[in-house]
């Protein structure tokens, strides 16, 4: 250009080559993207607790230290993609863990697929998260199973014949799970008319009173209302205020302290399916995890922390088996995860990258989540 400078153009785009880190001393970076602010912050925090706990207990693999790079995705899909891009390109992480919330995970999915970075979800249960994405894995069950489990419980244990659905149109998780519940419920009752009403709302809504007025006089035995814990708690509260007294059931999102804080007495008796319970440890690792968790946080662990813990464990197991920090190799090792003993049970990742897990039914009693029953995994 006649300026007199020479501009050095690197032969290869530095950042796209994974070898860079070998220079990085003995550190392997793993990215975490979770909602730490915004509507799903409670879940993100709990998950993070589990991940960090695991990192403290098992800080090394292949003789190298593992460094967690944590990004807040602000419970926002856009931020989720941005966070993942940043993790991959600024921090050069080898693998990623996250995120609470299927929609957030799905938003990031395209990115990790494009840049081929293996990612392990802790609790996103929507089938689309891993579908057609060889780089996305998860350590929890999926919603078709969860929907069946909870429908089963409704019909067999609660004796429900008619149900009302209340779903959050903005959450893939909520609409998906409702769909699977409906299918299972109709099959179980053998009655195509068994769903008497499907009511939709959008994340962030606070006033369900009109909707409740609408369904108050419908003859139903149960309300299935999977959704974010905040909206669900408010919904239940207002339902009870209006004198609706039939059981209200939901999915794994409910297991957060916030659900009880907001719902107060109204959520007494609320029933939902989830991944894990401290009351019935399943494996050796469960005990190890529970102990460590009590020691560090001075309370009982919850499902999301446990899944966070497991996601980390599965990941370093894969790194160890791959005997390399090469993302491709980690991915391959992850895909071969078999009977790995996690805190939440034995984990085997199938061709879609999904774990096949058992489910737990819990109930709110005296302001606590109480274990009700255990449901064996169904092999697809």
């Amino acid at each position, binding site marked *: 250009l006649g300026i007199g400078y020479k501009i050095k153009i690197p032969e290869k785009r530095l950042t796209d080559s994974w070898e860079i880190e070998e220079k990085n001393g003995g550190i392997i970076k793993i990215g975490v993207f979770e909602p730490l602010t915004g509507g799903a912050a409670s879940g993100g925090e709990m998950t993070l607790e589990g991940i960090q706990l695991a990192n403290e207990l098992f800080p090394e693999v292949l003789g190298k230290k593992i460094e967690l790079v944590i990004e807040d995705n602000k419970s926002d899909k856009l931020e989720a993609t941005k966070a993942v891009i940043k993790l991959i390109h600024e921090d050069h992480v080898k693998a990623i863990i996250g995120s609470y919330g299927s929609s957030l995970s799905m938003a990031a999915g395209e990115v990790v697929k494009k840049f081929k970075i293996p990612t392990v979800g802790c609790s996103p249960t929507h089938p689309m998260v891993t579908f057609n994405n060889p780089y996305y894995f998860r350590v929890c069950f999926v919603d078709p199973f969860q929907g069946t489990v909870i429908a089963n419980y409704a019909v067999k244990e609660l004796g429900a014949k008619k149900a009302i659905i209340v779903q959050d149109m903005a959450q893939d998780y909520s609409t998906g799970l409702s769909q699977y519940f409906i299918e299972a419920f109709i099959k179980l009752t053998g009655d195509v008319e068994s769903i008497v009403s499907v009511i939709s709302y959008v994340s962030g809504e606070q006033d369900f009173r009109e909707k409740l*007025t*609408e369904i108050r006089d419908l003859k139903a035995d149960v309300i299935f209302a999977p959704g974010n814990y905040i909206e669900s708690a408010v919904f239940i509260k207002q339902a009870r*205020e209006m004198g609706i007294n039939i059981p209200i059931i939901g999915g794994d999102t409910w297991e957060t302290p916030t659900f009880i804080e*907001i719902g107060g007495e109204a959520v007494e008796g609320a029933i939902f399916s989830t991944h894990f319970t401290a009351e019935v440890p399943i494996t050796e690792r469960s005990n190890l995890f529970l102990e460590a968790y009590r020691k560090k946080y001075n309370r009982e662990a919850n499902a999301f922390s446990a899944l966070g813990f497991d996601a980390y464990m599965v990941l370093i197991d894969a790194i160890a088996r791959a005997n390399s920090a090469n993302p491709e190799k980690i991915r391959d090792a992850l895909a071969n995860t078999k009977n790995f003993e996690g805190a939440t049970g034995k984990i085997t990742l199938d061709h879609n990258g999904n774990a096949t897990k058992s489910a737990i039914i819990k109930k709110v009693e005296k302001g606590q989540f109480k274990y009700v029953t255990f449901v064996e995994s169904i092999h697809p």
Partner: protein
Amino acid sequence: MTFQVFMQHLANGISLGSLYALIAIGYTMVYGILRLINFAHGDIFMIATYVAFYGVMLLGMQLWWIAFPAAIIFTYFFGRLVERAAYRPLRNSPRISVLISAIGVSFLIENLAIVIFGGRPKAFPIPPIFNKIIQIGDVSIVSITFFIPAITLALLVGLVYFINQTKTGMAMRAVSKDYEAARLMAIDVDKIISLTFGIGSILAAVGGIMWGLKFPQLVPLMGLMPGLKCFIAAVVGGIGDIRGAVLGGFILGLGEIMLVAFLPALTGYRDAFAFVLLIVILLIKPTGLMGQKLTEKV
């Protein structure tokens, strides 16, 4: 729709409407005096609710009658602080700068709240007196539903008197048009504006606590949507006019509820209702329902 169901909707509508009205009055006051859409109003409302929450946590549920007024007083000073920091330095700047500052300070308060209070929602404590379920025939109504309209009405009467009949009220209206000329009348412009803000913030605080009692979850962004809707209520009624704000609040609250009740298919459009109403009213009567038509003197 049965009569009972209708009554249930009506009760909900009136209660929501008066809540909107209460917050709309605060908007209208500040707008009337500063000609400023105080975008931070919703955030002041949020702060008040959080302070009330921590107050009750600290003092215990029995002492809510201390905690709530304390929160209102705190908010009064907080509102004045916001004015001092974000608006006073821009006293002689174009209106757009002040408006931007309003948006900026609203951002700042929200983000600070996220860091200080945490992004995670909190449950607002409800003293039993507000939470009694009253059964009238087949209609069940929570007692807060009655408190809200009563409080709104009381504040309305007080404010209308204050603004129209007292010298300070007149000074407020004078300041709204011409700072310099107001100064020439020996009016302490800064003091009047600060006072207006304080009063507006008290209204926001009362509204916030009522809101918390009705929709008991606290998140740092909780002021956003109510803030916007109540501003709309104020505009629909005729901004600057307190009675207009009340009218607008009621129309909006009742309208939203009745829309959902009578046309359940349009439930998803509930949040759009406010805006559609706004635009329709503005196009028919550009100064709002109660706003007087003023031909600009050329």
